[in-house]
């Protein structure tokens, strides 16, 4: 990790006010450091991903941002308020451990979750039915939660999270337990929320979701945030990779390759030299490499994660990622 790691790349220059802000947030449980001084800035209207393996401190951090637990040190602000519960009506929260009252009817459950956030019960019931209808679950509105499938119950809970039209939506591992089809639907829903001005912050250990959805991410590992900022900047921290296929295995052109070039199968892989592509091409042509193909591949978020959080964290992340989402 280089010297820039551990710093928050300021998003103020984007020009949007901050929906969520955390400074030096620390949390200990019985002497164990769960979160070790986290800084975070989430602009209004952004889809913000918190990326990290299980046990990294994602849930603890989100709980602190929501005011469920208080930090031992540091400050956090949600919509400009030091006490997040003061703006509880403007927040929607989907916890990692999903749960609803099993005997409640589906639309009632949505209305109840809205009522907790100040939405009148009558309005909540009406919106509950409408939301279920809009999501293709209208036929199940009168069913008890215990009569729904796990995926349907999960959708009902998500709708309950959104029924009061929150300005900030906090989702803890929202893709967990969903099949690929529903993951896609959820991605679309999150995009539409952001398009309508809501700020969405979600935690995940599936890099692909963050890469597809987020403008900004925070990478969290071991209770620390070694990187928080734009996805593009994170990817740009790693030089683009050159993939080269040549007709000849050896020759003077080999001197043009950097010392850390890897040869895998028919291809050579190495970082794009600081001098750029043109001098490299010239050297390969003059060295009679017989270029069959050459491509420059921009680093992915996964590469950035490995570079920032380390191999161990990346491995832990992959171990918990569902195969279809990678």
């Amino acid at each position, binding site marked *: 990790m280089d010297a820039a790691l551990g710093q928050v790349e300021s998003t103020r220059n984007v020009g949007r006010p901050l929906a969520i802000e955390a400074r030096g947030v620390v*949390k200990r*449980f*019985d*002497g*164990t450091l*769960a*979160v070790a001084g986290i800084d975070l800035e989430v602009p209004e209207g952004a889809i913000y991903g918190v990326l990290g393996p299980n*046990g990294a*401190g994602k*849930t*603890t951090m989100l*709980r602190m941002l*929501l*005011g*469920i*637990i208080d930090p031992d040190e540091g400050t956090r*602000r949600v919509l*400009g*308020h*030091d*006490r997040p*519960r*003061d*703006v*509880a*009506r*403007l*927040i929607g*929260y989907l*916890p990692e*451990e*999903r*749960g*609803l*009252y*099993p*005997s*409640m009817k589906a639309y009632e459950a949505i209305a*109840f*979750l809205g*009522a*907790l*956030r*100040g939405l009148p019960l009558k309005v909540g019931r009406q919106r509950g039915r409408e939301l279920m209808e809009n999501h293709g679950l209208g036929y199940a509105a009168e069913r008890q939660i215990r009569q729904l499938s796990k995926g349907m119950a999960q959708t009902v809970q998500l709708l309950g999270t959104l029924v009061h039209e929150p300005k900030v939506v906090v989702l803890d591992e929202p893709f967990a337990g969903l099949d690929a089809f529903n993951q896609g639907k959820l991605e679309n829903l999150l995009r539409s929320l952001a398009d309508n001005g809501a700020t969405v912050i979600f935690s995940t250990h599936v890099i692909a979701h963050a890469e597809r959805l987020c403008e900004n991410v925070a990478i969290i590992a071991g*209770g620390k945030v070694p990187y928080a900022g734009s996805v593009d900047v994170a990817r740009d921290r790693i030089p683009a990779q050159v993939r080269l296929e040549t007709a000849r295995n050896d020759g003077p052109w080999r001197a043009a390759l950097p010392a850390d070039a890897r040869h895998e199968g028919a291809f050579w892989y190495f970082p794009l030299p600081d001098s750029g592509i043109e001098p490299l091409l010239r050297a390969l042509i003059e060295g009679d490499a017989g270029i069959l193909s050459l491509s420059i591949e921009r680093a992915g978020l996964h590469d950035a994660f490995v570079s920032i959080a380390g191999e161990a964290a990346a491995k832990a992340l992959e171990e918990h990622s569902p195969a279809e989402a990678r």
Partner: protein
Amino acid sequence: MSGEATPKSRLSLWQAAWVIARRDFVAILFSRYFIFFLLGPLFPLVIGTLAAGVGQRVDDATAQTDIAVAMAPADVDAMLRAQGALQPTLGPTLPHMVVLRRLAPGERFDARAALSRPRGNIAAVLTGTPAHPVLTATARRAEEWKGAVSLIAARALAKDEPVYPGVQTVGVKSSGASQRVGRVHTAQVSLTLLFIVTIFLTGMVMSTLIEEKANKIIEILAAAIPVDALFFGKLFAMFLVSMVGITVWVTAIGGLIELAGMNPAMLGGFDVHNLPTPGVGWPLYLGLAVIYFTMNYLVIGSVFLTIGSIAATVREVQTLSMPATMAQIVVFFVATLALVDPGGPLEVVAILFPLSSPYAMLARAAIEDSLWPHLLAIGWQALWVVLFIRGGASLFRRKVMKSGPQPLKLRRRDRRAAPEVA
């Protein structure tokens, strides 16, 4: 940026508590638990009635004990006549007499041997003559009956029929002593009812948060509303349920008594129309009973709710409920014991200790007529309700709402406790 809340950007404590209370109230009222709650008091009542009935029958079968007379035939007849003549005047205080043996002249009779043989309900043997009666019995029985036997013997020897003048009686509703005793009885009955109702409720309160934990709703609630509001809401819901329950019970019992014309004798001589007036008078006493029931429920309920909230499973709640119930019984006993020493140190302790304070004050309302101590006591109890709920909520947030890696010492302990896998 200011830390001030935007107007109406969150629910107030009471609004949030109402959301919880409304949900819980409806959920409990339309669940089978409410049926059990309604029927709950019937179980001890039915068992108590059955036990009392069985006990009464056993008692009836063994209660009447006789004095067996073994004398000369003329003496036996004289003694039985005398007993019969005295019976209408002296009533049940006079022992019952049966003939054991009419002795032939010169016949000796072994009263000890006769008593040692189990025969009927013979508790004593009377031998000798009316002029010199000999009563053979256990020391307690002999002491109890020797006066009566002497009276019967004297009546058997008397040549003239004595005249027993009739006594004119003038009834009054109460005396100083009977009023005091009556008020103590009122206090005892009130405390017992308060205890029974509370013990049913607190048992349910203890497990009330288990549903949220089991169904993992607790985090959603904790994120949206203050934990204090959650606790208040839970307590209010159960309180409302109890009010419905009590209304049903009172209506049912009142209906039985009034509509079915139940005789007070059927209630074990407990005449509801002639209950002794409590110290503060009936209207105030009933009002105070409602208030102290509420305070008792809130004080004990808040403690039990906290204990239950820390438990992770139904099994843990069951484990905790036994000592908690025992503690409630101890509190009830202390408050009841304080009745024997009004104004004494025990009553003061019972009034000051928040868990027994409602009991002790309700008893006090039955006996004493002063009102100002009740205002102080209600304030004192309300303060403890707030303290218990605040403390419970804080404990709940610290102990339950945490995630992340377990502390090292816990992990070590778990490892030690964990069974080894081959």
